[in-house]
């Protein structure tokens, strides 16, 4: 599979192009392209990251800590953690199920199913929030019924969780499907033939094979779950101390011109992003260091 070929080249890296006269760019071209590429990188990616931390500490550590330990900030952090703690495991179960069904079997409609799983990627987050308002909101399909039972979904935790699940829906499945397709099912079949149950084959054979991909899927899904803004903004109602997640708290502080506090809370989310990227690099390095059996025919 194409995805695995890259790792075998990674060992040689750019040297295989730089050492040959035919593929080596001239000095001037090199310098111009490096300047353009890295300049663009610095301006559009590096600078915003630096700005987050610089602005967060602009008024000193005391303001920074005060912003983080403000009761509203703490409740926003708590809500974000709770929402992610519900959304990520649900998407994990779904992702593993979908990958097992799609990678291990052939069936009609498989291509369609794969496309439908990717659907949330192409839906604007604002629409992701809107659909749940249409169903569970006060004027929605089930709104009056739910109000009769005093159940709140919109402007409450369940709505936030639903919107978060929607926007992070494909992440784990997408990470696992190509990985499990590449690995095939010979090992699982051998385990079954030797008398293992389906669950034993999954836990002892499949899981060790997919653990790094699975871990990265979970980490990325978690980062997006904690950082989701548009979808959650539509369903949350922005009730301070109650239905504000961290990104929404950042927005409120910013709109109140409490810039240092807004960037302080934002810096926590930026740290989460950096942690996610570091884990990605670590996992890629791990996967390269322990060559998977997948490449064998």
């Amino acid at each position, binding site marked *: 599979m*194409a995805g695995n070929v890259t790792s075998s080249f*990674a060992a040689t*890296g750019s*040297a295989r192009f730089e050492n040959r006269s*035919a*593929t080596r*760019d*001239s000095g001037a071209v090199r310098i111009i*392209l*490096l300047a353009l*590429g*890295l300049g663009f*990188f610095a301006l*559009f*990616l590096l*600078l915003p*990251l630096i*700005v987050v931390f610089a*602005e967060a500490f602009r008024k000193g550590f005391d303001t920074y800590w005060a912003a983080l330990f403000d009761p509203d900030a703490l409740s926003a952090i708590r809500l974000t953690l709770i929402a992610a703690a519900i959304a990520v495991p649900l998407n994990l179960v779904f992702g*593993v199920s*979908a990958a*097992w*069904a799609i990678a*291990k*079997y052939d*069936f009609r409609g498989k291509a369609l*199913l794969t496309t*439908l*799983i*990717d659907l949330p990627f192409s*839906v*604007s*987050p*604002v*629409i992701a929030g809107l659909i749940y*308002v*249409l169903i569970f909101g006060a*004027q929605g399909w089930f709104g009056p019924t739910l109000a009769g039972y005093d159940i709140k979904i919109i402007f409450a935790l369940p709505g936030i969780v*639903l919107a978060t699940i*929607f926007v992070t829906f494909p992440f784990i499945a997408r990470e696992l499907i190509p990985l499990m*397709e590449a690995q095939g099912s010979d090992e*699982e*079949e051998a385990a*079954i033939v030797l008398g293992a149950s*389906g669950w034993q084959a*999954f836990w002892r054979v499949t899981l060790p094979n997919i653990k790094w991909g699975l871990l990265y899927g979970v980490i990325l899904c978690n980062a*997006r779950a904690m950082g989701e*803004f*548009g979808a959650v*903004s539509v369903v949350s109602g922005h009730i301070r101390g109650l239905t504000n997640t*961290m*990104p929404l708290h*950042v*927005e409120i502080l910013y709109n109140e011109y409490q810039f240092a506090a807004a*960037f302080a809370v*934002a810096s926590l*989310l*930026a740290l989460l992003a*950096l942690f996610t*990227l570091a884990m990605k690099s670590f996992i890629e390095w791990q996967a390269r260091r322990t060559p998977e059996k997948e490449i064998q025919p």
Partner: protein
Amino acid sequence: MAGHSSRKVLPGFDLTLGVTVVYLSLIVLIPLCAVFIKTASLSLEQLWNTISAPRAVASYRLSFGTSLLAAAVNAVFGFILAWVLVRYSFPGKKQVDALIDLPFALPTAVAGIALTAIYAKNGWIGQHLEPLGIKIAFTPTGVLVALIFIGLPFVVRTVQPVLEDLDAEYEEAAASLGATRWQTVTRVVLPAVLPALTTGFALAFARGVGEYGSVIFIAGNMPLISEITPLIIITKLEQYDYAGATAIAAVMLVISFALLLIINLLQAWSARHGRRAT
């Protein structure tokens, strides 16, 4: 590949497919249908008046125009970045490579306020542009900047693996047959990378059209000038105009699905192309 025979041996097909289809239907498919059912409750005239209102039309022009431009900028600089990362070695390369994915991992609201702090008129860069009469934040240019940030990794990450898989032999063959370096790049490398580049462009464009969090802080959100389509939906929702919000959402969904179809075709083209080349 998973063999045809595996269905007989491996258990769990019914369970896993069942979980997948039920969860997909409950979370994604049925809720999305709500948009079209709600839109169907409008009369054709109401629907047309909502989606062709001047503010809505101006927002389509802004959202699609800036997304297209941002995707084009990213196609050029994303290609250069992918080239630099694959072909050259330089200090800090690993860190640069890892940070390319930052827009995937950084919450959009954080990106939004950071970009505003850079380009506002008293901002890091904005204060130097202000005397020159250049305004970026709170103008359509600000929207463009945010969408460039959001879309960059799509181009780099689709082009990079294709560049890595490209055998140096093709370029050597071209060079030994007398092609100049420029000819080799435009006639050998570029055609091989084109499907991936187009896919990356389309992905960045599709993402830009729906983007909300990173844009609203820097856009200024002036009706008819710097108001993006997702914001129109939010504004209508806040006025309890559910039908209006849904009608605009239906327009966006139809366009997004069309884009998704195009991207799928592009990816199929890309995969076919890759197989032929190797």
